[in-house]
């Protein structure tokens, strides 16, 4: 009997290969979307981790030469012998055959834990590493590229090392770089002994660089990462709905057969068992295809990710994808779990419907009218939960929970809202055709709702992430414009040079503005305190979020302080509050709060007079120069010529900005590509739903045709229906997307980085997106509509002879 039942069930797929195809396609696409995003995410994370490890030394404070030049290692020994726990690093470029190699020399004995990649420090062969010819750790492709080159240490491939980099012992590196006895910088171990001689007494040529030297980049990286994570979540949701829709339809289509089988005596239990086995097999097949597809997606997008990270780190990252078992398993998992969840619901329905329940779609529609209420209630509950999380929640987890609740609430509410809207339209309709059109659309809703939910999520994600990205970009660029007003930034190597520099510059530029700072604890947390001149550069451009009147006058008068948003949020300070700075006699008034994107630390701004009185010891080396922009490059060259300043000490604002913008835009190419992809998949989900529905809908269309409508007319109505549904979904997606953007900007971002981004809306983008949605909906409906228009009358007539 089992065999007979099985063959009956399978015969359905043989008779309806299109349905089978669309089911598999739906499942595979959902899996592909999910696993593709996961693959990119995993690869990006792995790359970050590698980059972070590679740049591990940046997590430590460093002692760097003021002049940027290498120095003698006797300075290192002198510091060690004075109690400073420092470790020498020698860096340099080595020209090998055809490839520029970055050599990083370390001393594994004095290096603090975590300052070099794990595999480099974690291997046991210390003697081999130290003893000539030594060992050089490099990425596998670098090892391959260098194979056979003479004069190099024994090469060892390590996945933890960035391509193009060679990590070796400092002694070996000194030989390679012909820098005998030379050191580039010193890593400062986090734990230092209690007694140390002052740095200036032992190594006046070195200054301490705090560990967060790359904080700006780190924040950007994190935001990219967060973006991908959010996208992973969205794609998961979209995928789940697609799977759910595909499986649900597959069950619904076969309901008459189930009814007949049960009427003929197949026990419910074995029917359900067979169906479960069938779902599992289908899910595995589609899942495998999906993972492979996802791999393709990821492989296509990964070069962009690699480019982004290269932009962020200025270091080469592998642009290839390695197959990670985790996301193979994850992809199959989502296919099986998604299919299982969807099938569970359908099986439950099957088990609870009496064997002879009417098989007409209308009955299904009515049965799900109750489901609609339940969904509405769930949507309401989730909406309330999202609201609660937004108001009372804190932290990143709450932020993501808010995102999830919001999306799910919106998706669940969609069918209900559409049904309500269609009901209203139906009652308002005058003509008989219009009335039928609305009624019929409403009846089709249950079959389409999952595809529409997927479309809603895709559109909302598009609007949300798009708004976030654009807001981020706009704000960030604005902030760059404001913060980097000066055309050139020059750092002197020592005080004496700084004085000469100021003198030399005075007649040559419009203004020389000191940018002097000191690190000190403010309000209980480490912060950077800056002294700034009273100048239009600041008055006109500084990005104040909130300020007392006359803020700049107060600052110049030395009675007030400006703080960045991070410090304001952390210490709960606002304009008008009192703040005592270290070394100050009395409290200053917080006159304003400014935005400071990308900086994880607190910052305070003082008038220059007050700053020099309070902190006479602060190095006075950095200066911002105002001059006509076109003269900047010439002046930069002159500075190098006159003072021999290293290039790193002169920074051209335009160059900085260009690099930032480039990094930024690359970062989000990936997002944009994923956006389009999600939308496309949602469109495909709609196509498969419409295709499978088309077959089921013939009994509803045939009588109307028989009563005097042409097939072409019916097809046009079908197309119109899909467009109308897509348009309605788009209209609903706008508020959902905006809420999503708000949650990302005002909740998740604050939780993650401590600053809130202002939200900018881009209605023109919505129009474009709306057009895209209509295109997706229209394309999805086009094929089924064309099939209807061309359908042979005999096929329609069959409907009249068949019992349904």
């Amino acid at each position, binding site marked *: 009997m089992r065999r007979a039942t099985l063959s009956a069930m399978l015969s359905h797929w043989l008779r309806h290969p299109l349905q089978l195809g669309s089911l598999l396609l739906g499942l595979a696409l959902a899996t592909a979307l999910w696993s593709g995003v996961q693959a990119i995410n995993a690869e990006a994370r792995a790359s970050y981790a590698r980059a972070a490890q590679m740049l591990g030394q940046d997590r430590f404070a460093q002692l760097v030469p003021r002049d940027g030049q290498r120095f003698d290692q006797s300075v290192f020994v002198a510091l060690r012998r004075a109690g400073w726990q420092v470790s020498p690093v020698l860096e340099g470029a080595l020209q090998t055959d055809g490839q520029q190699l970055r050599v990083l020399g370390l001393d594994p004995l004095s290096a603090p834990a975590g300052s070099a990649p794990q595999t480099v420090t974690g291997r046991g062969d210390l003697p081999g590493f130290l003893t000539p010819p030594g060992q050089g750790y490099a990425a596998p492709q670098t090892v391959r590229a260098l194979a056979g080159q003479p004069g190099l240490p024994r090469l060892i491939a390590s996945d933890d090392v960035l391509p193009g980099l060679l990590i070796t012992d400092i002694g070996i590196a000194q030989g390679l770089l012909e820098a005998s006895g030379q050191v580039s910088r010193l890593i400062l171990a986090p734990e230092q002994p209690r007694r140390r001689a002052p740095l200036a007494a032992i190594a006046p040529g070195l200054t301490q660089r705090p560990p967060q030297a790359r904080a700006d980049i780190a924040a950007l990286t994190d935001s990219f990462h967060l973006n991908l994570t959010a996208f992973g979540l969205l794609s998961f949701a979209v995928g789940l709905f697609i799977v759910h829709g595909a499986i649900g339809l597959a069950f619904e289509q076969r309901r008459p057969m189930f009814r007949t089988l049960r009427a003929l005596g197949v026990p419910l239990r074995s029917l359900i068992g067979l169906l479960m086995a069938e779902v599992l097999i289908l899910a595995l097949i589609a899942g495998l295809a999906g993972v492979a597809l996802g791999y393709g997606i990821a492989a296509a997008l990964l070069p962009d990710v690699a480019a982004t990270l290269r932009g962020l780190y200025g270091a080469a990252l592998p642009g290839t994808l390695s197959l990670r078992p985790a996301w193979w398993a994850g992809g199959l998992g989502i296919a099986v779990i998604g299919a299982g969840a969807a099938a569970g619901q359908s099986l439950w329905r099957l088990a609870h419907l009496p064997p002879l329940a009417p098989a007409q779609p209308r009955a299904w529609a009515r049965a799900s009218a109750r489901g609609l209420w339940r969904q509405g209630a769930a949507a309401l509950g989730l909406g309330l939960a999202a609201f609660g999380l937004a108001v009372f929640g804190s932290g990143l987890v709450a932020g993501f929970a808010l995102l999830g609740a919001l999306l799910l609430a919106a998706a669940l509410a969609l069918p209900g809202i559409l049904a309500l809207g269609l009901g209203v339209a139906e009652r308002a309709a005058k003509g008989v055709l219009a009335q039928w059109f609305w009624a019929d659309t409403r009846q089709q809703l249950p079959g389409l709702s999952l595809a529409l939910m997927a479309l809603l999520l895709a559109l909302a994600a598009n609007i949300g992430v798009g708004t976030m990205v654009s807001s981020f970009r706009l704000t960030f660029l604005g902030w760059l414009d404001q913060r980097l007003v000066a055309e050139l930034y020059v750092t002197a190597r020592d005080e004496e040079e700084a004085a000469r520099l100021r003198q030399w510059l005075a007649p040559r530029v419009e203004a020389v503005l000191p940018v002097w700072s000191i690190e000190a604890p403010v309000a209980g947390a480490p912060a950077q305190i800056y002294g700034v001149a009273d100048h239009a550069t600041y008055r006109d451009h500084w990005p104040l979020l909130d300020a007392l009147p006359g803020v700049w006058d107060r600052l110049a008068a030395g009675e007030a302080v400006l703080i960045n948003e991070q410090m304001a949020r952390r210490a709960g300070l606002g304009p008008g509050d009192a703040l005592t700075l270290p070394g100050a006699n009395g409290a200053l008034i917080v006159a304003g709060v400014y935005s400071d994107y990308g900086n994880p630390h607190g910052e305070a701004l003082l008038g220059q007079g007050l700053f020099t009185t309070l902190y006479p010891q602060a190095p006075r080396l950095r200066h911002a120069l105002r001059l006509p922009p076109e003269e900047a490059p010439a002046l930069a060259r002159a500075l190098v010529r006159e003072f021999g300043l290293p290039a790193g000490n002169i920074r051209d604002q335009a160059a900085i900005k260009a690099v930032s913008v480039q990094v930024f835009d690359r970062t989000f190419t990936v997002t944009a590509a994923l956006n389009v992809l999600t939308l496309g998949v949602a469109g495909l989900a709609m196509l498969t739903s419409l295709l499978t529905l088309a077959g089921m809908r013939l009994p509803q269309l045939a009588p109307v045709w028989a*009563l005097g409508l*042409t097939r072409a007319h019916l097809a046009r109505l079908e197309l119109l229906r899909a467009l109308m549904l897509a348009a309605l979904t788009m209209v609903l997606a706008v508020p959902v997307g905006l809420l999503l953007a708000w949650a990302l900007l005002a909740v998740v971002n604050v939780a993650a980085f401590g600053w809130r981004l202002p939200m900018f809306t881009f209605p023109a983008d919505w129009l474009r997106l709306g057009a895209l949605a209509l295109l997706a909906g229209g394309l999805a409906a086009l094929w089924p509509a064309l099939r209807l228009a061309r359908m042979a009358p005999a096929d329609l007539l069959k409907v009249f002879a068949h019992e349904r």
Partner: protein
Amino acid sequence: MLLEARDIEKSYGTGAGAVRVLSGVSFRAAAGESVALTGESGSGKSTLLHLCAGLDRPDAGEIRIDGQALGALDDRGRAALRRDRIGLVFQQFNLIPSLPVAANLSFQARLAGRQDAAWCAALAERLGLEGLLRRYPEQLSGGQQQRVAIGRALAARPRLILADEPTGNLDEATGDAVLALMLELVSETGAGLVMVTHSARLAARLDRRLHLSGGRIA
């Protein structure tokens, strides 16, 4: 002549080859005339009726309604013909599941732009549907659905009523009443009626009887 079929041939293609259903059927039905179409199951009655309604095309032969050859009409023309002149009652009712009974009843009349609310109400009453107007088709019994289908066909006062076993699901008394209603309309408006039936008793009440057998009118 209201309906004129001449030398109609029709075969269906199946996996096992073509099945010839009609092989040279000719008949006529005049305005105001009622014709019974009988024949054993599978003899092609429904097929013939669908051809007459312009739902499908014959392989050979010609069908004319009010002198208009259906073969000369395009899709749109045939749709207009069905809408405006023909009342079809299907063997399987084929109501529109998304619309309530009232809307189903008036659907074709409104489509044809000839809605007559009083007539619709009268039809509902005569067919015993007054209490069911707000229900949906799947909430009706087979007989009730059949009565709605008949009402839908008559609501537009068609020139030609093509009914495929309209009383198949009805008890004798209701069947008689429904037939009376149709005949009343025929005599009132001068419409033609072609009705498929297995019941000799009902067939006897019509003006003429055609028997389909072996693909021909006997």
